[in-house]
Structures are given as C-alpha cells and as structure tokens.
C-alpha cells in the first residue's frame, strides 16, 4: 500500500474493509474530511482497519476524522471503535436511537461488571468506550459530541470548499417502529441475578441498525449496514424504498446490507434507490457453519442490475502454519480447520461534480470481483 495516494480534496472515496467476520466503511467527504462507519480489525496486524489505512495514506486521524457512525452493536461491526474514539479526537459520534434509553445503558454497564471473560464482554466493552468518551468530551467542552440517529435525521452536512458542492449524510433507519420495539426488547438483554453469564443474546441488533444515504455533489451512495427486512412488519427496506420522504435520486454505489443475506434483500431497493449502473460492494460473514453470502445469495446478487459486484475479502483463507508441535496438535485434534486471516479492501473513488468521470476501483488483499 506504500504507493497508494490519498484522495484529492474534491474526490469522494468509499473504502470497504472486510475480514471474513467484521466490516467497516470509510468515507472521504472532500477536503480531507473523513467519516468512519463501524469498525473491524486487520487480522494480520491486529490494527484497527480504518485507522491503519488512514495513517498509511498520511491522514492525521486526530483532526481529519469528523464522524464515527456505530450502525449497531454487533461484534462484527464494532471491534476497534474504542480505539477510534480515543484516536479521533475531533470526531462526533452517531449511535442508533435504539440505544438511547436507560435500559441499554444498564445492559452495557452490568455486562461490564464482569470483564474476566475477554470474549464475552467484548462488544459491550467497545460500547462502554464510546459512552465513556462521550461523557468525558461532554464534561470537557459542555457540548454533546453525539447524535442519536433515526429515520430521516441528517447526521452530517458540509460544503466542499473546492467547488461548493454539498456533502450530506442522512440516516434511513432505525424507524420509529424499531425504536419502539427496542424500548421493549432491550430491557430483556439486562442480565438477571442468579442466571448464568451468557455470551449470546436473543435480540438481533440488526433490527436497530442505521442504514445511511450519502450525497455529495452529484454522487449518491447507499450504505445498507446490517438492516434486515424484519426490522419493520411491512419490511424495513420496502418501507424505506417506498417512502415519500426518502432522499432524492438514485445511488451509484451500494454497500449491500447484511452480507447479501436473503433476509435483508428487497427488490424495491434495486428498483427505486439504485441506478442500473451502480457498483455493489459487500463483505462476507462466517459464524459456526454459517457462511454469508451463501451460493444462492451470490446467484441472486449477480442477477441484479449493476455494473460490478465486489467482495472485500474471502470468507476464509489458507491455514496459517504454527510451531510444528502446535501444528501437529491442531491437525490431530480438529475435524476441520480454517484460519480467519482473510482481509481486504475495496476503494471506490470519483471526482465530485464531473459527470463524465467513471469510478476508479482499487482492490487490495483478498478483495475480488464476483
């Protein structure tokens, strides 16, 4: 990556990182102003992917990152946000309005009481970092550094100095329905006395995820987060695509929601929100024996009208060799084995307000075109 240049001040950039489990989107909004949406870790360097990338292209993360959006609190979208909060001193934070309730705070804080299980508390740990950072920042400056995101809320608005184009990020979700559901459901996450400490919870944070609409000059982007249709009884995506209030225009790039899974797919999104020449990008997700997107998901994705479809990384990669004794033990005692070391990124760049420009597409690591 040594020779990779930073985007020009009037160049929009979307970079999607994936590691086979986690996902992160990085946006350049012009004038060296950046927005980070979610976070994941580079398994090779154990660094926070967006920070590592920004440092490599000589961006001063303490000044230039203007916003961190935590779309929802699933493990696969949140690893490293604590570090981002610490390093990006200038960033405002956007959190799902579903988190804006006493019970959510209680859930995070109670789980935080038992940090001995390094896996178990992890996603709560990261949220704890954000909440603590917000409290600290508020005490220092007196100003609330955070926004509770919900449907139609503008999270970011700015103007590019070079050509006067507007840059705007709008939340498409969570809907009022999802926020109300959260009020009822999140209380159930709080552990009860005398019950065993468990890692898995029964509530699906995807239902409260923040999907984003980004517009900058004539460029429009749809970021689907992990929002699933089930987030609304009428289909969360169907409601968004058919809403009269939705932002104008069609997007020319799409971060496919929820790793291309069937339960996050909606035909209306392709008809009403995306151009026929849009570029789709997505990340895979693996858990237990579940792999997303699966074969039928890939067939469905390929059928959609778009100019290109990219995956940020593979769902697994070649096994890493260890010390010979460790290697022998692993070989003898496992039925199957995969190293979760896949990592890659896709970068899309385009100059703002120049219609004839095509997207420049860069892939790195295990990223590939489907």
């Amino acid at each position, binding site marked *: 990556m040594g020779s990779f240049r930073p985007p020009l001040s009037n160049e929009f950039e979307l970079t999607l990182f994936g590691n086979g489990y986690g996902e992160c989107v990085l946006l350049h909004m012009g004038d060296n102003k950046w927005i980070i949406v979610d976070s994941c870790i580079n*398994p*090779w360097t*154990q660094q926070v992917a967006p920070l590592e990338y920004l440092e490599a292209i000589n961006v001063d993360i303490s000044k230039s990152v203007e916003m961190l959006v935590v779309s929802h609190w699933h493990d696969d979208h949140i690893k490293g946000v604590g570090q981002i909060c610490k390093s990006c001193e200038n960033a405002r934070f956007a959190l799902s309005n579903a988190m804006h309730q*006493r019970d959510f*705070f*209680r859930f*995070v*804080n*109670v*789980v*935080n*009481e*038992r940090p001995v*299980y*390094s*896996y*178990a508390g992890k996603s709560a740990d990261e949220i704890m970092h954000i*909440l603590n950072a*917000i*409290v600290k920042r*508020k*005490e220092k400056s007196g100003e*609330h550094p*955070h926004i509770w995101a919900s449907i139609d809320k503008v999270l970011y608005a700015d103007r590019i100095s070079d050509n006067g184009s507007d840059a705007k990020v709008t939340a498409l979700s969570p809907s009022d329905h999802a926020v109300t559901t959260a009020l009822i459901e999140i209380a159930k996450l*709080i*552990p*009860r*006395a*005398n*019950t*065993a*400490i*468990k*890692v*898995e919870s029964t509530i699906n944070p995807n239902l409260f995820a923040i999907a984003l609409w980004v517009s900058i000059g004539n460029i429009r982007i749809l970021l689907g987060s992990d929002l699933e249709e089930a987030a609304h009884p009428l289909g969360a995506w169907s409601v968004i695509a058919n809403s009269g209030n939705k932002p104008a225009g069609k997007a020319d790039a799409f971060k496919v929601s929820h790793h291309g899974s069937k339960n996050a797919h909606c035909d209306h999104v392709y008809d009403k929100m995306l151009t026929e020449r849009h570029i789709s990008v997505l990340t895979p997700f*693996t*858990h*237990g*024996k579940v792999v997303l997107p699966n074969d039928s998901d890939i067939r469905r994705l390929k059928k959609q009208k778009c100019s290109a479809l990219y995956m940020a990384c593979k769902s*697994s990669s070649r*096994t*890493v060799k*260890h*010390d010979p*004794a*460790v290697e*022998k*033990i*692993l070989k003898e*005692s*496992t*039925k*199957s*084995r*995969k*190293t*979760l*070391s896949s990592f890659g990124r896709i970068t899309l760049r385009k100059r703002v307000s120049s219609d004839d420009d095509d997207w420049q597409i860069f892939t790195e690591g295990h990223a590939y075109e489907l």
Partner: protein
Amino acid sequence: MSSSSAAQTYSPLFTDFPKGTMPLDERTRRESSEADPHIKRIETENRDWLVHYIDAYSDSNDADSEKIEKTSMNFEINRSSRQPIINFPHFKEWRKGHFVSLKKWEGIVESVFESSFVARIKDVANEVPDERVEIDFDELTNIDEKKMIEVGAIFSWTMGYHVSSGGTRKRQAILIFRRMPKWTEEDIQRGYKVADEMFAKLG
C-alpha cells in the same frame, strides 16, 4: 467409629469468625441466614454465629467411605488453636512436573453438533489470526465438562509439552471450559448505578 461417623455426616459445619468480623447488625444477619441456604444462624451462650451450613456429604453417595471418615472428625467449634504450626510434607511429592506452553488459545463455541462443536479460537498472545475449528468432544481434558459445551461457552486450549519431574517431554493439549458464574444482585446494582448516572449526563 463407623456408627458415629454416620451421625456426624449429617452434622453441620461451623465457621468461627474472629471477634469483630462477624456481620452483627440484625438486617445482615437475617438476610444472610434466610436468603442463603448455606448460611445458618447458631445461637450459643455468649454470642451468635453465622455459619456455613453444609450437608453436602450426606448426599454424596459415591464418595468413598474413607474420604468421608477423614472429613468427619472434629465437628465442634474449635476456639483454641488459632495459630497451628503447619508443615507441608507432601508438597514435593505432589509435584508432578510442569507444562511448557507453546500456544494458548481462547475459544468461543459457535455451534454444537452431536459429537463435535465448532468454535472460533483466538491466540491469547495476539500473534496469529483467529481460527475456526471443529473439535470432537473427545478432545476435552475433563470429559465431565461435556455438559458445559453450549453456544457462547468459553474455553481455554493450551498446547505444548508436559515435562515430568524426571524430564520426560510429552506433547499435550489441555482444553478446559471456563466456569460461567451467575450474575449477582450486587453486579446488577453496581451496573445500574453507573448506567443511571451516565444516562442522566447524556439523556
């Protein structure tokens, strides 16, 4: 001895609290003796005792009688020998060698099948990327822990050599599940307190 041993098996055990350390206020006393089945209040001439009341031996039928006998001596509250002199003569014999760790993983169970489970394992030293492995139940170091295998359970898996006291090396992997304690009311109240303060600041 054998007849008295049976009687003693059903006797409670006592904890002697040094002066001043016993929770003496009425509320604590009531709470602790009523809320906790293992705590009992015993009244003696001079003072009251909060004791750990254990009838565990009575229902451990599988315990061999020799072990029960050993535990069944001396049930009265012993107030005299505060400072026994202790030698640990068996310590050296107990030592059976040590373990040279080459890699320690921490795993989390993702799915459970009939005789195996899939887990994501993380290098504790953070030197290599995570792996996803399918492990047979047979690999458990203590097969009793089979009932602990459930989605979300956490285990540690240490790989290396066991070196006996004589110096013999043997390749070995030890897989043991972490105990998931129960949440206590105190944990929850502490969490609530911080959370509510935080919420008030950001509300």
